[in-house]
C-alpha cells in the first residue's frame, strides 16, 4: 500500500476533482468538466467513477462496488481490490454496511441512508449527445434550457413503438432546470434518483465530466401527459429468492430455451435467501 499515495491519485489531481464535485453539488445536474486522468484500467471500465471514489474516500470508509447490481463480476471485483490495495479501505458486499458505493448501471434495491454516498460510472454523460454530436451546441442547449429535441426523441419512440421504448439511461430533469443522463441505469431505478437520502456523484472518465445530485433533490423523468413515465421490469418473480419488487436479469440456463429471472442486485437476493425466501428455481436446482 505504501507504494502509492493514498487512494492512488496524486493530491493535486484530487483537489481538482474535489473542486469539480463541489461545483457539481452546487449546480445539480450540470456537467462539470474535469481533467480526467489515465487510470490503470481501460476507459469504459469505470475510470470516472474510480477517480470520484479516489477523491472522496477516507481511511474510515467501507467501500462496496457493484456492476449491474452484482458484487462478484470482474469489474466490481477489480475496482474493489484496487481500492483495498491503494487506499487500504475496508470493503463489503452488504449495501447497508457500505459508506461509499461505486456502481455501474444500478441503484441498490435497499434504500440508501444519509450516511452513504453513491458513485456512478458514466459512459456518456451528455443526454443530448446522440441527438446533437457537437459539444459546443449541447452546451448552448443546456445554457438556453433548450430541451425540445429530447422530447422529440421520446415522441418518436411513441410514434414508432406505441410507447416510450427508452428503457435505460432514461433522461431526467433535475430541480426543473438541467436535463441529465442518469447513466445507463434501467428506468426501473429512475424513481429512486429523486429525494434520495444519500449523495449521488457521477463520474465520466473518458468524457471528462463530473455531475452530482445532492440529497433530496427533485428529479423528474421526462414524459408526456398522455404517456406518463413508467418504471418497468420483467414481469416475473426472482427465480432464486421469489422477490416480486426487484429489478431482474434474464439468464439463459440451457440450450433448449430455458431461462430464469434473478435479482440483478446480488446482495439483496442473497439477504432474502438467507432470510428464508425461496423462489421457484431456488435451492439445489438452481444453476
Amino acid at each position: 500500500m505504501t507504494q502509492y499515495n493514498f487512494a492512488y491519485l496524486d493530491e493535486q489531481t484530487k483537489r481538482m476533482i474535489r473542486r469539480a464535485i463541489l461545483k457539481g453539488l452546487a449546480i445539480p445536474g450540470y456537467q462539470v468538466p474535469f481533467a480526467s486522468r489515465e487510470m490503470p484500467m481501460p476507459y469504459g471500465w469505470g475510470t470516472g467513477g474510480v477517480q470520484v471514489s479516489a477523491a472522496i474516500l477516507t481511511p474510515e470508509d467501507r467501500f462496496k462496488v457493484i456492476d449491474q447490481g452484482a458484487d462478484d463480476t470482474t469489474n466490481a471485483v477489480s475496482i474493489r481490490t484496487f481500492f483495498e490495495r491503494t487506499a487500504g479501505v475496508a470493503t463489503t458486499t452488504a449495501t447497508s454496511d457500505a459508506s461509499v458505493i461505486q456502481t455501474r448501471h444500478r441503484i441498490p434495491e435497499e434504500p440508501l441512508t444519509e450516511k452513504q454516498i453513491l458513485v456512478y460510472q458514466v459512459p456518456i454523460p451528455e443526454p443530448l449527445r446522440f441527438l446533437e454530436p457537437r459539444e459546443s451546441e449541447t452546451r448552448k442547449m443546456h445554457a438556453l434550457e433548450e430541451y425540445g429535441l429530447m422530447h422529440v426523441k421520446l415522441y418518436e419512440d411513441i410514434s414508432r413503438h406505441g410507447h416510450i421504448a427508452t428503457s435505460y439511461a432514461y433522461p431526467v430533469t433535475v430541480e426543473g432546470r438541467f436535463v441529465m443522463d442518469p447513466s445507463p441505469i434501467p428506468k426501473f431505478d429512475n424513481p429512486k434518483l429523486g429525494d434520495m437520502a444519500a449523495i449521488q456523484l457521477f463520474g465520466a472518465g473518458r468524457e471528462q465530466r463530473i455531475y452530482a445530485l445532492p440529497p433530496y433533490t427533485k428529479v423528474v423523468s421526462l414524459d408526456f401527459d398522455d404517456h406518463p413515465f413508467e418504471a418497468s421490469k420483467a414481469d416475473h418473480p426472482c427465480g432464486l429468492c421469489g422477490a416480486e419488487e426487484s429489478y431482474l436479469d434474464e439468464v439463459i440456463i440451457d440450450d433448449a430455451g430455458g431461462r430464469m429471472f434473478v435479482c440483478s442486485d446480488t446482495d439483496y437476493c442473497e439477504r432474502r435467501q438467507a432470510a428464508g425466501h425461496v423462489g421457484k428455481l431456488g435451492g439445489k436446482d438452481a444453476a
Partner: protein
Amino acid sequence: MQAETLSGGFADPAIQSAQAFRGVMEAMARPGTVRSISGATPPAPLSGAAGTVLLTLCDPDTPVYLAGEADCDAVRGWLAFHTGAPLAGPSHCMFAVGTWDQLNPLSVYKIGTPEYPDRSATLIVECTELTGSGACLKGPGIKTSSALSVPEVQAFQHNTALFPLGLDFILTCGNTVAALPRSTRVSEADGATEVSSCTLP
C-alpha cells in the same frame, strides 16, 4: 522566513485533506448542516476551518483573493508556502476568503457563464458565529427545510436568482464549516426559530 509560515499545515496531507474534504462536501451537499473540520492552524486572522478549506481545495491552479485583514504578510506567506496558490483580485479569483463585510460587494466576483456556470468563485466567509438557526433554507440537499445563521439574507436571495450562475459560499467559524450553494433558497425565519415555520415555495 518565519516559523509561522512553515508550520500549521497538514501533518498527513493525503489523509487529512480527504477527511476535511468529506466535511466540506457534506456541508455543500446538505446546506444548513454545521460540521467541524480540522487539520490546519493558519496564522491570524484566519480561522482553523478557513485554513483547512484553503489547504484542501487550493493549489497553483486556483487564484485566491485575500479580503481585508486576511490580506497580511503572515497569511500571504502561509498560503504561498502550503498551497502555492497565486493571489488575485476579487474579479479574477476562484476562491476568496475574508469576513462578510470585507468580501463585499459580491457583484465583482465571477459568477460563471451560461455555458460554464461552474466557472464561478467560491467565497469562504469567516463568521463570528455559525449555528443551525436563523434564516430558513430550502432547496436541493434539504429534506424539508433547514436553518443557518447567515450574515445577510438579501444577498443570498439575489445570488439564488442568478441560478444556474452564481457564487457558492463556504461559511467558517473556529473549526466549524457550513455551506450555501447557489441552489439554496434563503428566507428570513418567520419570527420563531422553528424550521418548519418558514414560508418559501
